[in-house]
């Protein structure tokens, strides 16, 4: 079982290597780390403590900490969605820490099993079902970063390259003929 200390070490090292800081409030930080530990215990992966997981690695991949949205969120708002990772300015108190809007698309939050949701968001639900079906048929694509060569296999390219921080626009699909 992962301990709180192991979770702390992991996120501290991730923050250091990416130029981020952890939430400056020790009590909030402890709660967030405990949330990650709990999610790892119940889902086998540390999904974001502030988002509802589907308990399926495939569907939750984008919200596994550090989530796909962290880099653009810290960049734009000074903190990630759950406020675990913050910028230097927020850490030093120059910018107040506030809740930020959810960047994750709404259709990704609708589980494939939620039937009634489709009635209310017909278009998005259809889109979500289509994308889930696609991935289950292994219809995912290969993308590479044109700046550093990083390659990933997923439905869409990441917001930022996890290696060199190039923006999404620099990703291109790999086509194998």
């Amino acid at each position: 079982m992962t301990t709180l200390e192991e979770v702390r070490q992991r996120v501290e090292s991730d923050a250091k290597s990416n130029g981020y800081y952890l939430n400056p409030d020790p009590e909030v930080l402890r709660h967030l780390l405990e949330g990650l530990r709990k999610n790892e215990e119940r889902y086998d992966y540390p999904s974001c403590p502030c988002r509802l997981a589907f308990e399926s690695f495939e569907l939750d991949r984008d919200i596994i900490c550090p989530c796909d949205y962290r880099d653009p969120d810290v960049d734009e708002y000074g903190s990630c969605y759950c406020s675990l990772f913050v910028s230097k300015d927020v850490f030093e108190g120059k910018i107040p820490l506030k809740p930020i809007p959810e960047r994750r698309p709404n259709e990704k939050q609708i589980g494939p099993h939620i039937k009634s949701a489709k009635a209310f968001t017909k278009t998005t639900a259809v889109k979500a079902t289509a994308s889930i079906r696609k991935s289950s048929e292994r219809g995912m694509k290969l993308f590479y970063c044109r700046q550093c060569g990083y390659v990933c296999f997923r439905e869409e390219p990441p917001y930022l390259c996890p290696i060199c921080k190039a923006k999404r626009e620099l990703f291109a699909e790999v086509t194998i003929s």
Partner: protein
Amino acid sequence: MQTITVPGKNSKHRVLLYALSTCIWCKRVKSFLRENGIEYDFFDVDLHGEKEREEVTADILRRGGRLSYPTIIIDGEMLITGFKEDKLREVLEI
């Protein structure tokens, strides 16, 4: 769906909170309501199964909300996504 009621001196408005047990912003909303003596009902969505999750999802979407937590529904009419302290103060008249 079995919600948990947290009693408070101020029950002028009916407050329903959809939350996640691990979420720090949900925890802040709970503390905020408690500190201001607001009576509220809450439901920790992550601690429940598919049936209840579907009910919550349908309820939030029906009201035009986003599927993110905390979601606060006041008097069955006003939906607030996220911990917006100023907005809560205004709507709850505190």
